[in-house]
C-alpha cells in the first residue's frame, strides 16, 4: 500500500489500453496487406493520423494549458513548407520552381530530418510570436494568433520569396506516404506501409505529448489552466511554461503539417486557411477539451464521416425509385454543422470529457481523477 503512490503505478487499465493500441496497429498492418490500397479506409487512416496529431497538439495548448490559440494552420504551413522545400529531389526542382529557375535551395534532405526541421521551424516561429502574444488574455490571444497565421500565409505567397517558397504556386513531387511502401526489384510493392508509417509517426508524437502531460511539467500546465494566480503563487513561472506549451504544441503542429504535405502530396499556402484551424478546433471540442484520447477518436471519426461515410449526403440517392429529398452538394456539411452545434451546446464535455483511454477501464471513482496513465 505504501509504495502505491511513490512509484507511478502502471495498473491493469493502462496495460489493457496499451494492448488495445498495439492490436490496432497490428490490425492496420494486416489490413494494409490484404485490402486494396485504394480503399477509402486507408485515406481516412492517413488523414486521420495527421489530424489526430494536430488536434492533440492543439489540445496541449488549448485544453491542457488554457491558451486559446488559433494559429494552428500557420504552424502547419511552416512545417509543410519546410518539409516540401527540403525534400524535393534536386532533379525535379526545375519543374516545380518553373517560374523561379529551379529555386535557391539545391539540396535534398532525408524525409525524417526535414520533418523534424519542419517542427523546429514552427516552434521557432511560435517562440517569436509568443513574445508579444502570450501576454494577452484568452480572446485577444485567439485573434492575435489567428492573425499571425494569416500573416504567415501572405509571406509564403509573396512573389519575392519565390526562389525559396515557389511563390504562391504549388510545391509537389516530394516524397509522400506512398514512398514508405517497400518495393521489390520489379517496382511492385511487396510490403505496404503507407498507412502504418504515418500512424506510427503520429502515435510516437502523441505518445511524447502524453508523456509530457503526465510529467511534472504537464501538471504545472494543468495548474495554469485551472488557476493562473494560484499556479503563479505556487512558484510556477507563467511566461516560461506558457511559452513551453505553445512552442511544443507548434512543434507538433509543424510535424503534423509535414504529414499533411505527405498526405496531400502537394503543398500550397492557399490551403492553410482559418477554416482549417476551425476544423481542428471543432475536432478538439468534439473529442473533449483536455482529453488526448478524445482528440484522437474524434479526428478519425471526423475524417471518416466527412471523407467517407457521409459523402452520400452530397449526392442524390434513390431508394426504390424515390429521390431522397434535401440530398445535394453541401448537405453533408450542413449535417456536420448541426452535429457540431449540438455538441457545443448540449454535450460540452465532448466524447471523452477529460478522460483518457485507461480511465474507461477503471472504476468511476478513479476515473474522476483525470489522466493518469
Amino acid at each position: 500500500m505504501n509504495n502505491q503512490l511513490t512509484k507511478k503505478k502502471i495498473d491493469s487499465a493502462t496495460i489493457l489500453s496499451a494492448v488495445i493500441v498495439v492490436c490496432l496497429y497490428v490490425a492496420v498492418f494486416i489490413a494494409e496487406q490484404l485490402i486494396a490500397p485504394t480503399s477509402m479506409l486507408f485515406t481516412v487512416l492517413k488523414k486521420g493520423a495527421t489530424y489526430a496529431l494536430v488536434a492533440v497538439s492543439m489540445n496541449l495548448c488549448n485544453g491542457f494549458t488554457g491558451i486559446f490559440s488559433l494559429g494552428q494552420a500557420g504552424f502547419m504551413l511552416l512545417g509543410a513548407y519546410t518539409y516540401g522545400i527540403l525534400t524535393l529531389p534536386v532533379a525535379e526542382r526545375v519543374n516545380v520552381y518553373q517560374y523561379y529557375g529551379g529555386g535557391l535551395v539545391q539540396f535534398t534532405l532525408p524525409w525524417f530530418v526535414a520533418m523534424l526541421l519542419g517542427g523546429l521551424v514552427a516552434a521557432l516561429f511560435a517562440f517569436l510570436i509568443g513574445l508579444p502574444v502570450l501576454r494577452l488574455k484568452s480572446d485577444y490571444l485567439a485573434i492575435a494568433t489567428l492573425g499571425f497565421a494569416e500573416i504567415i500565409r501572405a509571406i509564403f505567397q509573396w512573389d519575392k520569396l519565390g526562389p525559396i517558397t515557389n511563390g504562391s504556386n504549388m510545391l509537389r513531387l516530394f516524397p509522400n506516404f506512398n514512398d514508405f511502401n517497400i518495393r521489390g526489384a520489379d517496382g511492385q510493392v511487396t510490403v505496404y506501409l503507407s498507412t502504418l508509417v504515418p500512424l506510427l509517426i503520429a502515435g510516437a508524437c502523441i505518445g511524447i505529448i502524453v508523456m509530457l502531460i503526465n510529467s511534472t511539467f504537464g501538471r504545472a500546465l494543468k495548474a495554469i489552466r485551472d488557476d493562473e494566480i494560484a499556479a503563479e503563487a505556487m512558484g510556477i513561472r507563467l511566461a516560461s511554461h506558457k511559452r513551453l506549451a505553445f512552442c511544443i504544441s507548434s512543434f507538433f503542429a509543424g510535424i503534423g503539417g509535414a504529414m499533411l504535405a505527405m498526405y496531400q502530396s502537394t503543398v500550397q499556402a492557399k490551403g492553410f486557411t482559418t477554416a482549417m484551424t476551425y476544423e481542428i478546433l471543432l475536432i478538439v471540442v468534439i473529442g473533449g477539451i483536455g482529453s488526448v484520447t478524445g482528440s484522437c477518436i474524434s479526428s478519425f471519426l471526423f475524417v471518416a464521416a466527412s471523407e467517407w461515410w457521409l459523402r452520400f449526403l452530397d449526392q442524390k440517392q434513390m431508394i426504390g425509385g424515390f429521390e431522397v429529398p434535401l440530398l445535394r452538394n453541401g448537405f453533408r456539411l450542413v449535417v456536420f454543422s448541426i452535429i457540431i452545434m449540438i455538441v457545443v451546446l448540449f454535450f460540452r464535455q465532448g466524447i471523452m470529457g477529460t478522460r483518457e483511454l485507461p480511465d474507461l477501464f477503471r472504476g468511476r471513482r478513479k476515473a474522476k481523477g483525470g489522466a493518469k496513465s
Partner: protein
Amino acid sequence: MSAEIKRPANGNAECVLHIDHLTMRFGGVVAVDDLTMDINRGEIVALIGPNGAGKTTAFNAVTGVYTPTSGWVSLNGQDITGKRPDEITKLGIARTFQNIRLFSSMTVFDNVLTARHLRRTSNFLTATFRLNLAEEKKMRQETEQLLREVGLFELRNEKATSLPYGKQRLLEIARALSTQPKLLLLDEPAAGMNPQETEELGEFIKQIKEKFDLTVFLIEHHMNLVMGISDRIYVIDFGKQIAMGTPAEVQENPAVIAAYLGVDEDEAAEAPADARPEARDGNEEVSPE
C-alpha cells in the same frame, strides 16, 4: 521614504519579513498607506482590520501579485519588491487564498505534488522522457509524507473540489507547505469554519509552525483564533496601521475598538484583487494600471 534610498535589511538577523513604508494605490484609492512591519523568525503574526482595510492588498503586494506604488519588501534581508509571484515563492514565501483557489481538475495528491514543481532540477526534456525518475519518486514520497502529516492522505485520490469546505482550506495550506516555504501567508484560513473547526485549525497552525520550522503571517477575522495563536498583531484601517502589539495590548487599544465598532465579522469580499469576478477577468494583466 522614497525608492532611491538604499534598502538596508533592518539589521535584525531574526527578521524574516520586513515591510518598509509600503503604499499601494489604485487610481485615486489608497488601499495600503505607508505600512511598515517586521516579522521575526518563528513568530505567528496576524494582520487584522475591518473589511476593506487593505489586508489582502498588503498580502498581494508582499507576494508580488501587485507591484507596490512605493515602499519595499524584503525577505531575510533580500529585497523582493517588484519580483514576480513565482520568484517570491521560490525564495520562500508561500500563501493561501481567501477565496479558495485549488487546481480544480486535479486530485488532492496532484494539487500538492504540483506545488513541488518549483523545486525541480529536471527540464522539460528530461521530465518528458522520464530521465528524472529519481526526482519524481522523491517528489511523490515527500508529497505522500506531507499528506499524512496534515491528515489528507486518505483523501488523496479525491478530486480537490469535491472535498468539504474545511478540508479544501486544509488542502490549500498543504499545497502551500509543499513549496517548502520559510514564511507562510494565510489569508483568512478559518473563513467559513465553525468554532470547533476553527479551534482545531489554530492547533494545526501551531503544529505545522513547529514541524516545518515556519514563520506565519495571517489575516483573520475570527478573533478567538487570532488572539489564541498570535505572538503579535498588526491592526490596519483604511490602509493605515492603527495599532501593533501583543493580543492583550491590541484588545485594549482604543483606536482598535473604535475601528471595529459597529463592524460585524461578516466575511464579505474586501480587496480589489479577489473581489473581481472570475468570469470577466478579461484584461486583468493590463487593467490594474
